[in-house]
């Protein structure tokens, strides 16, 4: 294996791990705001690491530059979208979940 292939395998493994963390967070966390936390941070990191592996796979071509632009775009827009949705929900009056609520059992 060349060093580039080792880097690709490691980045893909790390990205898949963070995507699993994001999916578990979206399913298991108790309310909208904590789910936004999982969706914005873990999912962005998983996508960015995996797209980095794709860029290394394409090597020194112009396609790799396109992949890096896609990576930067995801890195900026994914947390922005989650923040906008959380703020819209707060403006609508959805209450955050606290430890006092209902024995801590998620919905």
């Amino acid at each position, binding site marked *: 294996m060349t060093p580039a292939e080792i880097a690709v395998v490691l980045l893909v493994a790390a990205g898949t791990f963070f995507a699993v963390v994001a999916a578990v967070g979206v399913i298991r966390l108790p309310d909208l705001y904590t789910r936004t936390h999982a969706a914005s941070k873990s*999912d962005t990191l998983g996508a960015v690491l995996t797209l980095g592996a794709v860029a290394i796979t394409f090597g020194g071509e112009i396609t790799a530059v396109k992949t890096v632009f896609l990576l930067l775009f*995801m890195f900026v827009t994914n947390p922005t*979208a989650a923040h906008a949705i959380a703020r819209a929900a707060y403006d609508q009056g959805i209450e955050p979940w606290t430890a006092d609520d209902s024995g801590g059992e998620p919905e």
Partner: protein
Amino acid sequence: MSAPSPLVSGVLLGAASAFAALAVVVLYRVLRGPTMQDRVIAVNVIGSNTVVILALVAAALGEPMYLDVALVYALLNFLMSIAISKFTVERGGVI
């Protein structure tokens, strides 16, 4: 470009199928809710998973054209989230 070595393309396609399985798992939150914003967040996660799947398939098969589809899909995904959060509040800016 030509396709990468069989080992690398196998790893990339395996990761793509793992991302697809995760998108199906997140679909539970879209169906369950309970609020509309929960569904939007879950659809956003599914959309970014789709972008990653498209990029992985583009790299594994050596088809750079798929990356353009991924770019357009990422744009539409972001626009969907912003539009929904914009139109669910009465007045004023969200961002």
